[in-house]
């Protein structure tokens, strides 16, 4: 308890979760997760610059394993698997992150409003969330994508839409006990506005579980978008996209496994990475393994 901790008061309110990330980083699982995510995000960002070929460049007969200049062979369309892999991370990362962010934003807003207001607004919002959950998610995705076509914004919208109720539930669950706490009452007694109470008093105190859930949702979003790609719904025909690559090259799995295996492994490592991070965060938030930082 040293008294010489100097924190600029102007900045302290902006620090959402002092130390949460740092504490989580003490866990090996978080470190591995961060390493995996950094690796794959790195591939996605740097990949296009170091790829030997363009994503749609013809390098040789389709589905060959031994092609000169293409060390992992060609894909279903005579393109270099390695180059397409290097190009293919951006789209899925972008779509998944944006979709999760949007879902996170609305889900958290709905959850916080429901938790803070309780009563009828709470009931109505949560009932509505239940109905969204009851609606077959896959059906929605397939129908929308079939009708409108596999547009980026639509994939984002669908994934975000199905993320909202889940985030909302978690947020509400985490916020209800916070609403009961006296500092919310103190803020009310001072006559703080609802918006300020929700954003400044409530939100910073549910960031822990929210962060965990958002990370978990990110993991699922990556899985869903990859799955949609697998079912043939990628944003663009022949786009370099890990999910789509799996679908495009799956029929050639036994002939030219790299086209499928490389992006599949990338997706798996990415989701494992985000999964490990959310697990690390969850353990830190819940303090489950506080006594065993090396677990």
């Amino acid at each position, binding site marked *: 308890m040293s008294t010489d901790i100097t924190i600029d*008061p102007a900045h*302290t309110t902006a620090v959402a979760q002092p130390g949460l990330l740092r504490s989580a980083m003490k866990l090996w699982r978080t470190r591995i997760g961060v390493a995996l995510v950094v690796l794959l995000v790195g591939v996605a960002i740097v990949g296009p610059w170091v790829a030997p070929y363009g994503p749609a460049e013809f390098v040789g007969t389709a589905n060959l394993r031994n092609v000169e200049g293409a060390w992992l062979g060609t894909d279903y369309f005579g393109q270099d698997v390695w180059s397409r892999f290097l190009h293919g991370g951006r789209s899925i990362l972008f779509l998944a992150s944006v979709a999760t962010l949007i879902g996170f934003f609305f889900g958290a807003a709905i959850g916080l409003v429901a938790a803070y207001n309780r009563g009828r607004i709470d009931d109505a919002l949560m009932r509505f969330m239940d109905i969204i959950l009851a609606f077959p998610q896959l059906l929605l995705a397939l129908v929308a994508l079939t009708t409108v076509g596999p547009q980026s914004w639509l994939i984002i919208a669908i994934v975000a839409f199905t993320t909202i109720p889940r985030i909302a539930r978690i947020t509400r669950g985490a916020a209800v006990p916070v609403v009961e*706490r006296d*500092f919310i009452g103190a803020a*009310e*007694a001072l006559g703080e506005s609802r918006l300020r109470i929700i954003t400044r008093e409530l939100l910073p105190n549910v960031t822990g579980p929210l962060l965990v859930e958002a990370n978990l949702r990110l993991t699922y979003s990556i899985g869903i978008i990859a799955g949609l790609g697998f079912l043939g719904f990628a944003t663009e025909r022949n786009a370099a996209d890990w999910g789509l690559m799996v679908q495009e090259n799956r029929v050639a799995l036994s002939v030219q496994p790299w086209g499928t295996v490389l992006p599949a492994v990338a997706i798996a490592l990415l989701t494992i990475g985000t999964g490990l991070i959310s697990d690390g965060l969850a353990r830190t938030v819940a303090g489950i393994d506080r006594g065993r930082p090396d677990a």
Partner: protein
Amino acid sequence: MSERHETLAIRNLRLDVAQSGNDIVDEVTLTIARGEMLGLVGESGSGKTTVGLAVLGHARKGVGIHSGSVSIEGTDVLAAHGKDLRRARGRLVSYVPQDPGTALNPALRIGGQVLEVLQTHGFGADNAARKQRVQEVFSEVLLPATPSFLRRYPHQLSGGQQQRVGLAMAFAARPAVIVLDEPTTGLDVSTQAHVLETVRALASKHGVAALYVTHDLAVVATLADRVAVMYAGRIVEQGTTAEIFANPAHPYTRYLVAAAPEMGSDRELVGLAGRAPSPGRRPVGCAFALRCEVATAECHAAFPEVTNVGTTDSHDVRCFHAFTVPERTSRRAAAGVAAAAGNDAALSLRGVDAAYTGLSVVHDVSFDISRGECVALVGESGSGKSTLSRSIGGLHREWTGEILLDGAPLARSSRDRPVQQRLSIQYVFQNPYSSLHPRRSIADSIGRPLAIAGVDKRETGREVDRMLERVSLSASYGSRFPDQLSGGERQRVAIARALVSKPQVLICDEVTSALDVLVQATIIELLVDLQRDLGLAMLFVTHNLPLVRSIAQRVAVMADGKIVELGTAADTLTNPQEEYTRRLLADTPAIPEFPANPELPIDTLG
């Protein structure tokens, strides 16, 4: 006292934090005879519960039993493992938990939970006999022994009933030793009184050796035969209850007694700043030396050995300066509770009714609080006192009637009140652990009302520093976060926040109920000072009757949503007019007068 029959004997018990090896409890030696009750007293964190659990051979996660022995009827519990240990638990020694609400399994019927103790230990000849015993023990703890009651689940019982089930569970297999871990915390005074009565009756009837762990001196004083005082993991003093209260030998014990509020007098409560060192930070010498007025160099150099200072009975103390009276504890002055400054009503309630989700909980309440006056609002839980105070603060919106601030009516919700009104009524909450935004610095929290009032940043910063000084915290606290503060410090911050906007009315809602007694005393001291200096009109809401006279001029007793009695604190508490008040007073445990032993060499400093 070796000739007496020691049912429980704890010798040199030491428990460590498993990881660091720092001791939580050390050098604890206690004995309890058959039919005897020992009160183990200490502030939170002193290690008293740890000792209680160690008696059952149990340590919480992360804590390990390092050394020592716990012997019950000749069986060494700490040496027992597996089956033997299980056989000892519940049969030889049983445990009554602090919070029966969480300690009873919500998924199992209460009858079954008691019965399984008997089944596990093969108590009685057969199941019929065991069921017979369950009914019997339910009757013993004054619960209905009907089959339908036995089939109830914990949540279908009141708090008092739940604790009785806890008692039934503990007494069921007729153990030799019972550990009671603050079993009445959280219960209303009347319920507490009844539970304590039952405990006393059962313990003496069955001749068990009881270890009663508590922080409440009044309870110990009325219940225990002997008392042991713990500080920072060590027993610093033990002796008969009469000895301990009449002639406390250790300065710490003296502070504890001095800090305990008394219904019968309006003496000033004496608090003590600082807190006990945590495990691993203990000094070489006496752990209390840092806070001790009478400490000398030798106190810092070594921890004194156990010395028997008893004249007629055993009375052990670990202090180089036994019986030296710290100056502050001897003040015993009347609290500075001034008379009300005239009839200038700062806050007036006129026919206030309040409801909670449609259910009427406050009926037709009217009273005034004058400038510079403190009115205590007392009542048991559910009496409506909190709803009333929250209505005044604008936190509860379901009320009708009139609440006037300086003659001007207040809107129902704080949000509808003008800024000036909002800032003029300030609220201090019960739980300092939940009333501060955990992710906001102390300075920001305190400065927030000023920001709302439109005060500029520089001025706010100055004002915050001034307020911190005023509540006896240094300005350096401004940059800290709540989790770096102790409970008492937090409550000071909460008070600073409430007072920074220079309010006329301060509502204190059970502000000390989450604090240890020494800290409670310091907060009360602070509030009395502030109220007097600032001429605040104060509403002090509490369930703790003895506290009232140390702070309030008048007291309003609330029951079932109505004010049943309103009068000056002295009159009401010494000469209650209403039956309800009388009963309440009767149920409130108080430290009886123990005649001091004049033969003891009492030194007074200064």
